């Protein structure tokens, strides 16, 4: 995603080293595995978790929830966004809904979701209510930012509406979405895990975190955080691939 200069990259490495040193020092001072585990116990917990019988199921379920939830949010955002920019009625109907979703505290909605929905669905829903408004807004912005001059050109040259949509509107929407893609996908992962911690589905990173917390197994909580960081990295890499498929970097001046 971002290209750092050599000097920048050095600073990033230094920052990472400082964090690790800080971790070592704090865990020495605290000297209590439950409150602040050492690197050694975290790593051994990490190995235990990975060797455990449910590891792949846990990861798989959380990833599926994240990706399915994100795909649903994305499809709905594009669909409703396009409809809203064609029919003003839909735009005005969506306005209070989006305002509601982005101003009411997420926790309140999560609590309602826990009451109303199935345990398996809650994490998906929690991700959706956070991510959908952002995606929807950027679809609207993408359509709004279409260059009117280009549309006029297409009209003068009597280009079919289908081609105008396919070649002008959709690339604009994708371009606009592209700028929020990695942040919203990361956010979605975080929200799904939070939802899992609360709703406790059978398999899930959030459920595992909650379980380890109950046992006061803090090294395992740290280990899961490391796993989540790695998954985030993986998702980011996936998006980079998508960028290359869409060829966005080739024409972006």
């Amino acid at each position, binding site marked *: 995603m971002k290209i750092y200069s050599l000097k920048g990259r050095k600073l990033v490495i230094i920052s990472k080293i400082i964090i690790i040193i800080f971790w070592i020092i704090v865990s020495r001072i605290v000297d209590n595995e439950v409150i602040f585990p050492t690197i050694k116990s975290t790593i051994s917990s990490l190995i235990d978790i990975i060797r455990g019988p449910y590891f792949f199921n846990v990861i798989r379920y959380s990833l599926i929830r994240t990706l399915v939830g994100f795909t649903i949010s994305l499809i709905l955002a594009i669909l409703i966004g396009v409809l809203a920019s064609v029919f003003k009625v839909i735009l005005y109907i969506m306005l209070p809904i989006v305002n509601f979703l982005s101003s009411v505290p997420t926790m309140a909605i999560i609590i309602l979701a826990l009451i109303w929905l199935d345990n398996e669905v809650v994490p998906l829903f929690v991700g959706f209510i956070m991510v959908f408004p952002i995606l929807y807004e950027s679809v609207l912005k993408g359509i709004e930012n279409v260059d009117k*001059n*280009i549309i*006029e*050109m*297409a*009209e*003068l*040259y*009597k*280009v*079919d509406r289908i*081609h105008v949509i396919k*070649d*002008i509107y959709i*690339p604009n929407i994708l*371009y606009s979405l592209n700028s929020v893609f990695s942040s919203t996908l990361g956010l979605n992962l975080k929200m799904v895990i939070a939802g899992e911690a609360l709703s406790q589905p059978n398999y899930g990173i959030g459920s595992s975190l909650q379980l380890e917390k109950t046992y006061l197994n803090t090294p395992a909580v740290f280990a899961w955080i490391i796993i989540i960081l790695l998954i985030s990295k993986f998702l980011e890499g996936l998006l980079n691939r998508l960028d290359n498929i869409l*060829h*966005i970097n*080739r*024409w*972006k*001046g």
Partner: protein
Amino acid sequence: MAYKVEGIIKYYGDLKVLDKVTIDFEPNKTTCILGPSGCGKTTLLNIIAGLIPMDLGQIVGFDDERISYVFQEDRLIKWKNVKENLEFVLKGNVDKNQIEIIIDKYLKLVSLEEYKYYYPKDLSGGMKQRVSILRAFLYPSSVLLMDEPFKSLDVKSKSLVIEFFKELRSVENKTCILVTHNIEEALELGDKIVILTQKPTRVRKVVDKNIMAARELIESYFKMMP
């Protein structure tokens, strides 16, 4: 086919922009519409193109024609390369199998083959405007409207792009209407020059090609004399 606008009147609110403008356009010739800035030249062109309505008057010949248009800006699609940009206006307007052949033919004609897969961001301003002019010429139209197409170019690339336009015009028959406020451009490119007044705009004078040719002849005579 005769092209004509007759008694065009256009108001913007209370402001009278065009006041009974009547112009004959000779088929397959270039008519330059020359007028001061802000006199409603672009308005006239947009009325001819059918982009905006007029309040009174008649347009003859343009209605059922395909029209090409070159704008002040290049208006290329930035996520499409040269080939795809050209393809965009041909899709649905010419036979699908012909598109690539037409594009290759024209790119070769104007020696731009090597730029076929360039994106607009990698082209200079003059080069982008050339692609925009090429787009207008390979589009299957008989009328070409140009709205100050050389205005935003620097002096050096301007003369190159003008040569480029002349070259295409000589191989491809189109009735060209060029709007400009630059006298040199009008003299160089127009077969006929229509001079407009300030607002409310009327036709002040029409200078015909024959008179131009006569002037050139006289001038060249004077140059030959010691």
